[in-house]
């Protein structure tokens, strides 16, 4: 197959070019192979092929060298570590939100060092606080320092960015927005659509399911909570989170099936439609190498369908790799591209062995058996083909990667289908989005469950693997030899036949007959409905009061769920996601309303999640402290409040909120004329609240310090409470002995992050609490996780997420 040989030669050439520089005159040497053709017509074919292969090798090497440019002052990289300067350019990629920052790619065209401006070329990765509104096509002036990307111990970040053509980064520069929408218009529409779909998903589902759906469907991984991400690492299933060939193949299969149903196959409209849709989707995902790889291969298969030819996975993969590497030679060293290509190669070469065990699907049970075989075969094939590359790049390997993938896989197609429907439905009409969201939520929850079960297993994660390059190469040589022997030994024909026609099983499944009995479908629907009814019942208001102090790291967020099922959220945690994730865990999946959102003070450890929550939950009313706005963040909050026409109230001491059935929420601080001259006026003027219902009471003291405590003690009598939310994450400037003597709590909760840089909670506070209530009644979120108190108005129970002391 000339295509295969030429592609491999081309790839070899590019690889060789990245190591040694070859002179162009070597091209002429190919003549030594072409000239003999005249004299040796018998060997014409082989000689011509060798000549072209030779040309491809040298051409590849030259192609690589053409991308290497000398470093001069016309390149952005030249200005790395040269101090503060001004860079001007356009946002050339879709911005990505990750934890509490937004990062994007800026194509610079102008640079000014000490007011001397000059033209410049190059891309910089810029990081800004998450609430900055940056869009593709914005023209910005950045004032900051250009840095060379850092090298991490376990991750070659510098190389990772270099493979994407980025050699400089800029962290938290000052920005000036010069112009908007200067980008390529269709691309900005696509990115807008992506944002809208992401928004629709997060409105339609609770966290973390919605973040997961955004990652799987749209490639937006930044929103996934850190501890969940850890579980994915631990189980070696991060490949399921990245949009991979698998996602695209499933989507392609859906599109093709739908297009055939709609338009039939008589005219070729279905092929053209599918082609344009998968490329639209590829653009939508931001064109990561894995998706482009799958899209090119999918296109090759679709064109094979058009011209009525065989779909040869290996030839298609070789062509795809040659094309992609030819366009962007750096990609050859990109790990995700390597993994994507290798797993495809594994599927094409190893999966056919498993296909032999599957039987004709004339009975539902056989279909299940075939699915199991194919699922097992494809995961094994992918793992066998990729694990050394994972191990040598990340120095770690998860033993449960395969079983976890195998069990998670069945839900995968359902997740993609249901997420697409949810996102689309949410765009049309939100209630429809909620309805579809239920389905997606169910499959996503199954997926999460699998990941969590496997990540809970001990001793499955091998770290600090030190694999040498020669060992990896040896492994692949051995693997290739085994495959070759298997191919040539027992009945070559059997094997290759299946590799030709069955490696693209998605195309075959299109023609699979539907199950004859509708009974199976009805049974499945009933089963799903049953699950929903049970989960729904479990989340109905139970007539009790629930107070959950969320584990949001170093920050604060507390949910009060009243006996009638009203939700009051006090503060929103230190980052955009964690409070939303906790809400998703605490509230039933159908409940997405917050009747009252209280921001006790404007500092970021209390307010960072508010934008997200106002955007995605149905917030009825917002209560703010009278403290003056603290940062640019508040401008964004104001904009959002206006857009949603959200009712806002500024609170001060003396106000009272009725929560129904006699429940009351009293505002204790700050007084109408705020406290001044205290040790910290912001902390001391934050909103302290007291919740009481029948004979139980809670005191939420936000971040108040000694001065505000003294004010409270001087002015009020009703401080006594059963549960005390300890002020200011357990800082030693709060929670004085006098104060504790008046409150006399029977239990206390401290909201603090693990090993936070403030040393919260402070030893002295713990000592004081120990003296007044005893250590076994003091809950710290960093140790216990989320702490939930439940009360019937008389008695109190508590539940902690983790067993304390661990």
């Amino acid at each position: 197959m000339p295509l295969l040989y030429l592609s491999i030669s081309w790839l070899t050439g590019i690889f060789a070019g990245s190591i040694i520089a070859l002179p162009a005159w070597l091209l002429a040497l190919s003549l030594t192979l072409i000239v003999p053709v005249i004299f040796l017509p018998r060997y014409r074919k082989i000689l011509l092929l060798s000549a072209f292969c030779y040309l491809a090798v040298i051409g590849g090497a030259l192609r690589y060298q053409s991308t290497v440019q000398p470093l001069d002052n016309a390149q952005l990289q030249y200005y790395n570590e040269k101090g503060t300067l001004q860079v001007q350019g356009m946002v050339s990629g879709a911005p990505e939100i990750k934890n509490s920052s937004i990062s994007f790619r800026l194509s610079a065209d102008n640079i000014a060092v000490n007011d001397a401006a000059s033209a410049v070329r190059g891309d910089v990765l810029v990081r800004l606080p998450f609430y900055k509104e940056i869009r593709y096509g914005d023209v910005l002036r950045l004032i900051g320092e250009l840095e060379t990307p850092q090298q991490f111990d376990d991750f070659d970040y510098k190389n990772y960015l270099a493979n994407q053509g980025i050699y400089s980064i800029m962290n938290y520069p000052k920005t000036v927005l010069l112009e908007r929408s200067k980008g390529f218009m269709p691309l900005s529409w696509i990115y807008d659509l992506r944002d809208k779909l992401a928004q629709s998903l997060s409105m339609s589902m609770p966290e973390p399911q919605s973040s997961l759906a955004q990652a799987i469907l749209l490639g937006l991984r930044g929103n996934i909570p850190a501890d969940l991400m850890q579980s994915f690492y631990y189980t070696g299933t991060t490949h399921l989170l990245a949009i991979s060939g698998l996602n695209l193949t499933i989507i392609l299969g859906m599109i093709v099936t739908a297009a055939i149903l709609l338009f039939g196959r008589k005219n070729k409209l279905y092929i053209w439609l599918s082609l344009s849709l998968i490329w639209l989707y590829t653009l939508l995902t931001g064109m990561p190498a894995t998706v482009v790889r799958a899209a090119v291969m999918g296109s090759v298969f679709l064109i094979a369908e058009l011209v009525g030819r065989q779909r040869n996975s290996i030839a298609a993969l070789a062509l795809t790799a040659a094309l992609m590497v030819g366009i962007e030679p750096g990609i050859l060293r990109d790990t995700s591209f390597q993994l994507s290509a290798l797993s495809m190669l594994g599927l094409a070469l190893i999966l056919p062995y498993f296909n032999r065990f599957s039987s004709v699907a004339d009975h539902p049970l056989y279909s299940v058996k075939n699915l199991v075989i194919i699922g097992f075969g494809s995961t094994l094939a992918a793992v066998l083909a990729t694990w050394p590359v994972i191990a040598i790049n990340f120095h770690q390997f998860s033993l449960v990667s395969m079983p976890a993938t195998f069990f998670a896989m069945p839900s995968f197609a359902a997740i993609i289908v249901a997420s697409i429907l949810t996102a689309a439905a949410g765009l049309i009409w939100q209630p429809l989005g909620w309805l579809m969201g239920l389905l997606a939520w169910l499959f996503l929850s199954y997926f999460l469950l699998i990941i969590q079960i496997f990540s809970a297993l001990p001793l499955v994660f091998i770290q600090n693997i030190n694999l040498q390059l020669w060992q990896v190469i040896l492994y692949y040589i051995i693997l290739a030899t085994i495959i070759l022997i298997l191919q040539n030994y027992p009945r070559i024909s059997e094997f290759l036949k299946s590799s030709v026609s069955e490696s693209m099983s998605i195309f075959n499944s299109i023609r699979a007959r539907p199950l004859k009995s509708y009974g199976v479908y009805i049974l499945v629907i009933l089963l799903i409905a049953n699950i929903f009814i049970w989960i729904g019942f479990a989340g109905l208001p139970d007539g009790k009061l629930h107070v959950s102090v969320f584990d949001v790291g170093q920050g604060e967020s507390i949910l009060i769920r009243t006996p009638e099922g009203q939700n009051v959220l006090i503060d929103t945690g230190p980052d955009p996601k964690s409070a939303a994730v906790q809400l998703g865990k605490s509230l039933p999946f159908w409940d997405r309303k917050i009747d009252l959102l209280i921001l006790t003070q404007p500092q970021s450890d209390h307010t960072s999640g508010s934008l997200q929550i106002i955007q995605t939950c149905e917030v009825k009313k917002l209560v703010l402290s009278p403290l003056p706005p603290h940062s640019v963040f508040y401008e964004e909050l104001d904009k959002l409040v206006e857009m949603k026409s959200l009712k806002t109230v500024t609170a001060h001491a003396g106000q009272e909120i009725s929560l129904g059935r006699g429940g009351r929420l009293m505002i204790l601080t700050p007084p109408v004329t705020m406290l001044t001259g205290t040790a910290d006026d912001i902390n001391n003027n934050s909103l302290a609240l007291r919740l009481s219902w029948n004979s139980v009471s809670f005191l939420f003291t936000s971040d108040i310090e000694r001065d505000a405590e003294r004010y409270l003690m001087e002015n009020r009598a009703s401080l006594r409470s059963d549960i005390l939310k300890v002020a200011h994450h357990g800082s030693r400037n709060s929670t004085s002995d006098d104060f504790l003597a008046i409150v006399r709590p029977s239990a206390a909760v401290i909201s603090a992050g693990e090993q936070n840089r403030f040393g919260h909670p402070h030893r002295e506070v713990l000592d004081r609490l120990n003296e007044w209530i005893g250590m076994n009644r003091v809950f710290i979120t960093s140790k216990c996780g989320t702490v939930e108190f439940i009360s019937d108005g008389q008695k109190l129970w508590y539940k902690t997420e983790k067993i304390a002391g661990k």
Partner: protein
Amino acid sequence: MTGRLKQLAEIVTDFFFPRQCIGCGKAGDFICDQCSKKLPRLLPPICQKCGKPESSSIYCPACWKKQGGIDSIRSVFIFNGMIRTAIHELKYYNLKAIAACLAKYMADYINENKISGSIVVPVPLHSRRLRERGYNQSGLLADEFARLVDLPVLNCLLRIKDSQPQARTTNVNMRRENVKDAFSCLNKGIVDQQVILIDDVCTSGATLEACADKLKKAGAKHVLGFTLAREI
């Protein structure tokens, strides 16, 4: 000129979508020389009428009694092994390009056995199934075959009843019933013609006979059912 362009297009297509033997996987053609020798040919002695293997080499017992519309049926292969795979690839896996390769065997058979005809007619597909599949595999075979033996193709048959696929029926009577009145013939240029009726597979012959009935009624002089494969 168009011929040259077509050739060039073929070379380019072959480069990007290399042909592989459906039997052994060897690159080159859809059926390689070696596998070609091993194809399950339907060799004489056969019944002179229905074409089934028959030791007497004249008429088989069933054909003695029958006064059917079709004059005779011939098939190149037994529907088995690689030929079964090939027909499945052609019918269900969109491998349209293999039609030319298969039609070559049919043309060779006609030439070797000195069978004559004046016109080629493919067994049609119902419009609904045509929409589902995108093409008529018998039509593809007929076109390529006609090109090789230099005869005109006439698409004069129509499938008017969307009967269930013959492959899902169980016995001969059911099959006959299934295709009864399933076809109609447009009376154009068929009068006094020697028709070669092309289909991919013949099982009981019911489909071919139903077609032949209509062709005869429309004035055809002689109808030969000619299929690539025969289910025995």
